């Protein structure tokens, strides 16, 4: 067998394997979205076909938009996710700067203390967190969720950002000091803009678990006014188990925003992972 032919066969095998797995990864999602645009009869008679003139129907979406307050849930999820990311980035970058820039007693201990949370999941403290939120009257508020998610995101943010901040040139900061800039100005004006790519990576890493979390919304903020999309979809589907149109449409609505964000930011995300943040 010639070398060229064996390499064709090899690349054929590689594409077969990767393509096969891609199909396995995408097919379930495709199936749900495609069937959400069909009437009930179409869903059951020809689940694998794209919606056509006879089976097309928006009845599922109409039910969902009439019954559930999905816009409200979206708003809650957006508020919680955006504010948490903002606080994680701001406070995380400040702490990372302090740890990477100054030598002081207890620096290493402080770094280790903050890194504990990377491996120990915050969920294990739920019993006492709920107790604390009840005591401070924060149950069923978005503030409770924002506080928890900020605490959850900080350890990894401090860890990644301090790695990057060590690489910022010391000459630049010292030049700033010679010019009489305060430490705060040096941080906000000189250092922060330079670590922007790392901040974007941290933002994406922080965002996914917050948007997708079911545990804390279920326990800390299950009221109608504070439900997030994940919890809303979970409870709505639970109620409408037998209404297949509504279930499929709810799932599609929950997939859509994540899918759009992913297609926009997937490069950033993949570059972040492959940049050696975890080595």
């Amino acid at each position: 067998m010639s070398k060229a032919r064996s390499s064709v066969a090899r690349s054929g095998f590689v594409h077969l394997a990767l393509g096969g797995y891609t199909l396995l990864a995408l097919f379930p999602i495709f199936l749900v979205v495609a069937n959400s645009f069909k009437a009930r009869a179409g869903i059951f008679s020809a689940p694998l076909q794209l919606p056509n003139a006879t089976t097309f129907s928006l009845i599922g979406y109409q039910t969902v938009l009439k019954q559930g307050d999905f816009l409200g849930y979206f708003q809650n999820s957006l508020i919680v996710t955006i504010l948490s990311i903002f606080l994680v980035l701001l406070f995380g970058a400040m702490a990372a700067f302090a740890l990477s820039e100054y030598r002081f007693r207890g620096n290493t201990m402080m770094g280790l203390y903050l890194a504990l949370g990377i491996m120990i999941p915050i969920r294990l403290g739920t019993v006492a967190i709920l107790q604390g939120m009840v005591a401070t009257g924060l149950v069923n508020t978005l503030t409770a969720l924002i506080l928890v998610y900020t605490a959850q995101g900080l350890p990894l943010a401090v860890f990644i950002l301090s790695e990057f901040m060590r690489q910022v040139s010391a000459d630049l900061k010292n030049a700033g000091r010679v010019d009489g800039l305060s430490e705060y100005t040096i941080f906000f004006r000189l250092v922060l803009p330079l670590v922007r790519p790392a901040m974007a990576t941290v933002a994406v890493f922080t965002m996914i678990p917050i948007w997708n979390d079911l545990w804390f919304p279920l326990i800390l903020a299950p009221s109608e006014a504070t439900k997030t999309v994940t919890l809303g979809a979970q409870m709505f589907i639970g109620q409408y188990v037998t209404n297949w149109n509504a279930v499929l449409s709810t799932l599609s609505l929950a997939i859509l925003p994540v899918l759009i964000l992913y297609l926009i930011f997937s490069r950033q995300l993949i570059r972040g992972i492959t940049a050696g943040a975890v080595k």
Partner: protein
Amino acid sequence: MTTIDTTDPDAVAKRPVRWHIAVFLAPAVLIYTAVMILPLIETLRLSLFNVVDNQSIFVGFDNFKVLFGDDRWSVSFWNALKNNLVFFLIHMVVQNPIGIALAALLSLPVLRLRGFYRTAIFLPTILSFVIVGFIWKLILSPIWGVAPFLMDLVWMKSFFGPWLGKPASALVTVSLVSVWQNIGIPMMLIYAALLSIPDEVIEAAECDGVTGWSQFFKIKLPLILPTIGIVSILTFVGNFNAFDLVYTMQGALAGPDGSTDILGTFLYRTFFGFQLQVGDRSMGATIATVMFLIILAGVSLYLFVIQRRIRRYQF
């Protein structure tokens, strides 16, 4: 570094208090301590107390004795722990090898459509457990019939069954759905590790006639062992506090007949209460403490034993 870092003792003594360090650290440390560390400690403390006549009294390790030995609790606990172990083992045996294989294929030189495959295979990982759980519940549902239809195409229809409804197969099915969702994480981390192997190493191997399979097993695999270690410990921690997927697919009771109950769902039912069961804070804290100790043991084993034995290569 600041210029104050001199070794001259006089300079250190005269150094003014650098308030800005405190200001930079304070917000992160305060929130982290108040919302994460203190509740964790409080949860550990609560596991040593129990409520008798509306009063919290110190009971030592009695809660643990009840959890491990009293039939009302221990049957569910050991069942959940056993299921959780199976859940973890299935991830280690199925998810990580397939993840490594996909990463190895993706990192081959001159591969067309690389970006597309990478983006597509990672997509399920960013979806929430709720979405993934319901999608697969629908697909595996005998009512809809998509799964039997697809199996018919490959002449395997006779093997189809209502897997989620049978105690013998439900746990494996849920675990495989979780594998389907999470496979992107090992794939990406190992893909990154494979990319960071310098070309010279690969070229040297090729000069010595080491190519293809043997190149992967003899050259690349030893070099990515540290990453495989990280992936394993991430899988361990993730699996032992998993909850969402089982809750979504099988409900808080983790049926049928508790066959998919893992520590996360057991903790939820215990401390939050469910249906006729009233929430029990002390026992909830006890279960959380056990989970904490399990995760701590796993992480310590990794940090102090496995990570130190793995050879690292510096390039």
